[in-house]
């Protein structure tokens, strides 16, 4: 997965990486955490679609299963990727909000 791939197709992947940046989580924990901070409820198929792509890209890694729960954690590459993506979003938000404010004044 390239940066362009992340930029274009995976807002959900950014949500997953953001959640894992707060510490390792299993599937159920990820769904509840993302629902809490983003208001988006991912289904198991969607969540594992993201996790599969992120794991393949080396941005997350699986930890040993705990009973029937399967936790994941973010890697150093994942932290850097989500930092870049969130910084970029913040820059766009700053410019966009400035322009909106200018247009409304």
């Amino acid at each position, binding site marked *: 997965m*390239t940066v362009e791939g992340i930029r274009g197709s995976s807002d959900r992947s950014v949500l997953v990486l953001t959640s894992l940046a707060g510490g390792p989580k299993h599937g159920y924990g990820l769904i509840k955490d993302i629902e809490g901070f983003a208001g988006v409820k991912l289904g*198991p198929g969607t969540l*594992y679609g993201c996790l599969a792509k992120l794991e393949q890209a080396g941005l997350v890694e699986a930890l040993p299963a705990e009973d029937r729960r399967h936790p994941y954690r973010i890697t150093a590459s994942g932290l850097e990727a989500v930092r870049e993506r969130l910084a970029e979003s913040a820059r766009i938000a700053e410019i966009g909000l400035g322009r909106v404010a200018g247009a409304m004044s």
Partner: protein
Amino acid sequence: MSSWLFRSLVVLYPKAWRERYSKEVGDLSAELLEAGETTRLHLALGLAMSALAERVRSLHRARFVAVLLGSAALVVVLVVMAVSLFAGNGPKTTPGFIMTVKEETVARALAAAADKAEAAAMTVEMSPARACTASQLTVGFFGSGVGNPGQGITEVRITDASTVPCSLKGYPAVTFLSNVGVPMRVTVGRLPIIYGALATVVLPPGKAASAGFIVASYDFPAEGTACPTAASIRVRLPDIPQPFTVTAPVRLCRLLAGISPIVKGAELAPAL
């Protein structure tokens, strides 16, 4: 979710994905159902659609047979789901249980055929392909969009128009041309390879553009500077001496541009 339905849905996923993640998805689905976080219908539809998405993702090249077989399996399972879920009965109490078993068998057979077709396509894809030649390729403007703030992105796609696959690896060299075809004095750098090593990209034969690269440039002028626009790009692909000329308007504020390596088309910005 009843195990028969989950098994029917799981067979729709690509084999490699299924082997790696099906247990985890099953455990999570069971946990969500037990917690009352979702319904069987919602869960089943979500898994079915995700399965199709994974099939398409794994088959982003021209593997139409496998896509069709996977889609056929999806249709069978959706029919089974509709009959059993909307009737409000599980298969054990439905008079059509024997048919359900048959349909599950058909779905499994179709999914297995899709796996075989996918494996065959992967084999073709993994076999060594000769380096592309100029006569095999068409190179064209695909679209433009916004990159980082203040930057524009232009996407150039490469198509193997011949009947045999070929490969490309590395960065293209580009020259920006004015509207009268004169080379512009633009400083061109290489964009970094973010993930992994520089890879050989195999282009399958056909009309679909399956590889490409991006040109990043400033589209906002710096204070007190002009912002010229190129009318076209002269592209030299790695190890191919003959250049291609791509008609593409590129704003070149600050007369700076960056070029990505050639990557698979599916890895380029899909929003463009």
